[in-house]
Structures are given as C-alpha cells and as structure tokens.
C-alpha cells in the first residue's frame, strides 16, 4: 500500500486531539468531573458561534476567546446555581449546558447568513475535509492543513499546562482540603483546568465536533484506569489508546464510509467495554490467572 498522505495527516491530527483531550480527561476523571467536562464542551457552542460571527469568515482568535469566555461562564453559572440559588449539583450542570447549547443552536440558525457553521458539523465535525482546508499565507505558501496546526498548538499548550502544574493538579485532585491548607490556590487550578478544556473543545470541534470531544475526554482515561493504578502509566496508556483509536477508527470509517470521528469513538467504546469485561470481578474469578484461588465469589 502506498503512503497515503491524506490519511496520514488526518490520523496525526486525530491522534493529537485524542492526546490533548485524554491528558486533560485524566484529571477530570480523577476529580469526578467527567460530566462537567461534558457540560463545558456543550456550553462553549454560543461562544464559538459568536466568535465566528465577529471574525467574519476568518476562523481564529475570536473563536477561541469566545469559547474560553463561555467555558468560564458555564463554570460560574453552575457554581452560582449550586451555591446561591441552592439547586442541586447535577441539575445545575444539566440546566446550564442545555441552555447554553440551545442558545448556540439558535444563534447558528439566526446568523446563518454570515456564519457558515452547520448543526451537524458542530456535533461530529468533519475531519475528512482536513487535507483540503489548507493554511495559505498571504504570499500563497501552502503550509498544510489549518486544523493540523491548531491541534498541534493545542497539544503543545496542554502538555505545557500539565507539566507546569503537575503536582498542583495531582494534589488538588486527590485531597482538595489538604491542598487548600498548604496554600495551593485550588480554586484557580480548577478554573484553569476548565479553561483548558474549553480551549481544547473549541480547537477540536471543527475536526471532531463538540460532543465527540467528550468521548475523547472521558473514554481513553476510563479505559486506562481499568488497567492500572499508577498515574504515570495511566497517562501513558491514555496516550497510547488515543493514538490507537485514531488509526483503527480512520481505516474502519474509510471501510464503512462513515463519520471518522464517530468511528474513532466507537472503537474507543469497544476497547473500553472489552477492558471492563476482561477486568471485571466475575470474569476474573471465573477465567482469572490464579487458578489456585477458589472461586467463592462466583458472580458479582
């Protein structure tokens, strides 16, 4: 098989997005904020639309700023609902993200004359167009696919963020009270994590859509957590899974002629469920490696 440049570009970009999301997702999962991550990736939609609208047809900084603001707004809204209005947490999350997402959809329809976003694209993106959506500089130089660069930048920033604040993220995720007592600005760390998630969502949504970003945030870390309890290994495994599902997902999507992002997620899903089955207590006790142990716990 000859080297397919387009396939390579798409897979690389998908892998980078999967890695960015996975890295952030590990900490979201450890903080038990997976659903908040889900909420944020829905909530940034109005910010994206307004950013598109303001910047005309140039997609750029305005969109990212718009999403960042919305991400923070969503976090603040959830917090206000929970603390000031005294609404329970799961309802606060649900109400906030559905409202913001609804506003986003309405805006897409209202501003359709100027904003060329379509509803489906928002949900699952279309990374297949990646190779033809090129970054052409003023002098006409073809630097390659635009989204590739966006994802690369995103990945670099996410990696930097995680390395810089690794110990703060670790301690605030494990024991928030203790971290506050030793003087770590837990609230700020939380807010910056949420902001990174918003930024990553917006950076990736053109390729994989808002909703599938959630899958990439949640599923690889969850799968990895089924296999290991060591943090370093957890992160490495998440990265490996991210790369793996991008490759397999692409080729399967090609074979079935379906959405690439959707297929990547489906592959991740199969991996996740298979891991869960393999690692589940009943499976292990029935087919487990230690044959000498009596299977007194037959089923869960």
């Amino acid at each position, binding site marked *: 098989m000859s080297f397919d440049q387009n396939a390579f570009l798409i897979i690389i970009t998908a892998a980078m997005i999967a890695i960015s999301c996975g890295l952030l997702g590990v900490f979201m999962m450890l903080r038990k904020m997976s659903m908040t991550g889900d909420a944020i990736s829905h909530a940034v939609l109005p910010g994206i639309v307004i950013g598109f609208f303001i910047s005309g047809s140039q997609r750029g900084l305005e969109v990212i700023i718009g999403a960042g603001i919305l991400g923070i707004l969503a976090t603040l809204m959830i917090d206000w609902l929970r603390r000031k209005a005294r609404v329970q947490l799961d309802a606060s999350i649900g109400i906030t993200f559905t409202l913001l997402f609804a506003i986003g959809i309405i805006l897409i329809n209202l501003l359709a004359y100027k904003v060329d976003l379509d509803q489906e694209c928002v949900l699952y993106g279309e990374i297949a167009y990646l190779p033809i959506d090129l970054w052409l500089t003023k002098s006409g130089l073809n630097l390659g696919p635009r989204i590739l660069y966006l994802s690369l930048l995103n990945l670099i920033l996410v990696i930097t963020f995680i390395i810089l604040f690794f110990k703060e993220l670790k301690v605030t995720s494990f024991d928030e009270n203790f971290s506050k007592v030793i003087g770590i600005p837990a609230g700020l760390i939380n807010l910056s994590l949420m902001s990174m998630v918003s930024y990553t969502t917006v950076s990736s949504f053109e390729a994989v859509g808002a*909703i599938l970003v959630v899958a990439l945030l949640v599923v690889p870390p969850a799968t990895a957590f089924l296999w290991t309890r060591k943090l370093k290994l957890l992160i490495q495994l998440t990265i490996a899974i991210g790369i793996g599902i991008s490759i397999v997902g692409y080729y399967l999507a090609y074979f079935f002629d379906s959405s690439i992002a959707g297929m990547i997620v489906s592959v991740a899903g199969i991996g996740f469920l298979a891991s869960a089955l393999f690692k589940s207590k009943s499976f292990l006790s029935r087919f487990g490696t230690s044959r000498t142990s009596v299977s007194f716990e037959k089923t869960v």
Partner: protein
Amino acid sequence: MEDFVYFFTFQDPSIAFVVIGIILLGVGSAYVGTYSFLDKKALLGDAISHAVLPGICVGFILAGEKNPLFIVSGAFISGALATFLSSWLNKSTRLSEDAIIASILSIFFGFGIVLLTIIQKSGNPEMAGLNQFIFGNAIAILESDVYIYGGLAVFIILCLTVFQKEFSLLVFNPDYGRAIGFPMGMIRVTFNVLLILSVVIGIQAIGVVLMAALLITPGAAARFWTDRLGVLVILAGTFSAISGVLGTYISFVIPQMPTGPWVVVFLSIIALISFLFAPKKGVLSRYLSRRIYLRKTHRDHLLKLLYKGIEANKPGLPIAEIHEAFPFQKTQTKQSIGNLSKDKFITQNQLVIELSSTGRSEAKRIVRLHRLWELYLNEYMNIAPDHVHDTAEKLEHLLSPEMEELLESRLNFPKLDPHQENIPRD
C-alpha cells in the same frame, strides 16, 4: 399577529395535533424526570437520551423508512442496553459514577453518529426525517405519531400517578421500602423502563442532545415552589407543557428553527424565574426575608435602647441621641422610628421619643430575653460574660414564648444577668 391567532385557535388540525403531542410528551418527560431529579440521578437521563441514537438508526435501517414502531423499539432497546451497561459497570469496576455515565453517553452517541452518517451516505431520501431526532422538530409530528407517542406518554403519566407511593419510596428511601417488603428491584426496573420510554418519545420534539433539559429543568424549577410531591410533579408537567407549546409556536412562525432549543430556552426562563422569585426558596425571597429580619432587629434594638434609658432614669430620649447610638444607619433609624410610631410602640413629643405602655412591655420582653439568654450562655456554656452579648443580641429576636418559658424554668427565674443587670418582668 395573524400567525399567533392562526396557531392558537387551532384552525389547522395538524397544528392541533402538534400541540397536543408536545404537551403529552413534555408532561410525560417532566413527570419521570422529576423523580430522576429527586433521586439525584438527573444526568442519567442525559446519558439515556444520547444512547438511544444508535437504536433509532438501526430501527430506521431495518424498516427502510421512518417507521415509528421500528424506531421506538430500536431506541428502547438501545436505551435499555445503555442503562444495563451503566449499572453493570457500576458494580463490576471501580470507575466513579460520573465517568461511567459520561462514557456510556459518548460511546453510544458516537456509535449512533457512525450509523447516522452511513445512512446519510446511502442516499435514502427518507433519512431527512432522522436528523430531526438530533435537534427535534415538533412541527413534524403527524396525527399518527400523536396516537403512538401520545399514548405512551399517557401510559407513563398514569403509571407514575397510580404508583406514586412506590416510586417515591424508590427515590427517598429504597432500603426502607425493601425492609417493609416492597419489591424495590422490580420497581427500579419499571422506573428505568418508564425513563427510557419518555426519552424515546421526547426526542421527537426536542432532540437527543437537549432531552436532558426536558427531564431535569421542569422538576428543578417546580421544586422551588412546593415541598409536596403531588403538587411538584403537576407543576413540573405544567412548566413543561407551557414551554413546549411556546417552543412549537416559534418553530411554526420561523420554519427553519428547530423546536428543541426554543423549548429549552423557555424552560430555562421559567427555571430562572423560579430560582429567583419563588416564595421562601427563591433568591429574592431569601434576600427580602433577611432584610425584613434585619429591620425588625433594628426596631428591637431601638426599643431596648429606650428601655435602658428608663433604667437610667431617662423617661425619654432625644432623637439625636437615638441616631448617635446607631452610627451609619441614619435611614434605617428613621424608618424604625416611623414604624414603631405607626404601631404605637413609641410616642414623639417634640424632639423626644418615649415608650408607650405597649412599647414598654415589648421592650421589657426583648430585654428580658436578651438577659436570660446571656445568663444561659454564661452559666450553661461557660462563655465569658464579655462574649455573651453579641450572640444574645442576635438571638433575642428569634426566641419564641415557649423558649422563654424553658429558659426561665431552666435558670430558675433568675433576678440578675451576668452583668449584674436586672431581668425585668411584669
């Protein structure tokens, strides 16, 4: 304006069906969702809504068209599978609940997207109808749809109403239910079935992504108005129905607008109004209660001041002196004086304020409560005499007559407080 009249007088029978449909869907979802909300598992509904997508697609593929029977069955199986997997994952792995819900939600949805795009590429003209399941399009509800979906909605509402006792046990105290012999496992399964059903019929109007709002928001909003389950559920249903009709109206007037988002917007507006303005629980109401309370405490303090004046042989106090006692609270003091005069607790003689006879007993009561409480804090709680004043100052306005009696008897009808001041009685 014409549109408005046309819409709401149901001149067009298809509109009538749409409105009936959306009211039934909305109410059914609100009913089930409210129980989910009380169970603190509101986001499970969100997961199920996303999870039905693959089932819808499979149903469509098998039927070759938008056949309600196939679609509902497919969606139901898909939703049931998701629910089953969620509880299985909960029991068999050490993943936290939110991670499980988020995973199931996105995996099923991703798979649904795969199927959806395959269908789209197959060029089947019928598939335009499928898109409506993602964002909702109430206007597309046909008469035949109403009978099926409406029927299911009525079934859900009836089920929840008839078995209100069982379901409320499930939500509040399943262990107790089990202990008194109710089949809680069965009830849980039934509830999940109703939840999945309501999702399946609700997404017609509002779409997969926003379905969670139809489940969570009505109940969350209604919760602020009442503590009684029966009223709560009916109120949630009403909110849902209103938002549904308004959202549909917008879809009717602006045809390219999907219904779902507008229903959510109206629901959220109702919710916000509830959170802010509901009596007792609303933000505004709590703020006002606090303000009213603070104003009462200020009036009480003023009465106390006058009484202390009498104890110091000053039958009345000049207004200026009263203002001095409450620095930085000029308007507050003026208001209190006004209110107290109106209630005939004080009389004003030129520039001097005096207590009336009713004022004097009231002032005496407050001073008594204050000093009794100080004594209690000091004697029973070892609190130093110079620290008891502040807490007593805050509590004197709260204590009821029964408390007063208790205090008196506990302290044995004392004569003096920790500062050696007289405890006044009639």
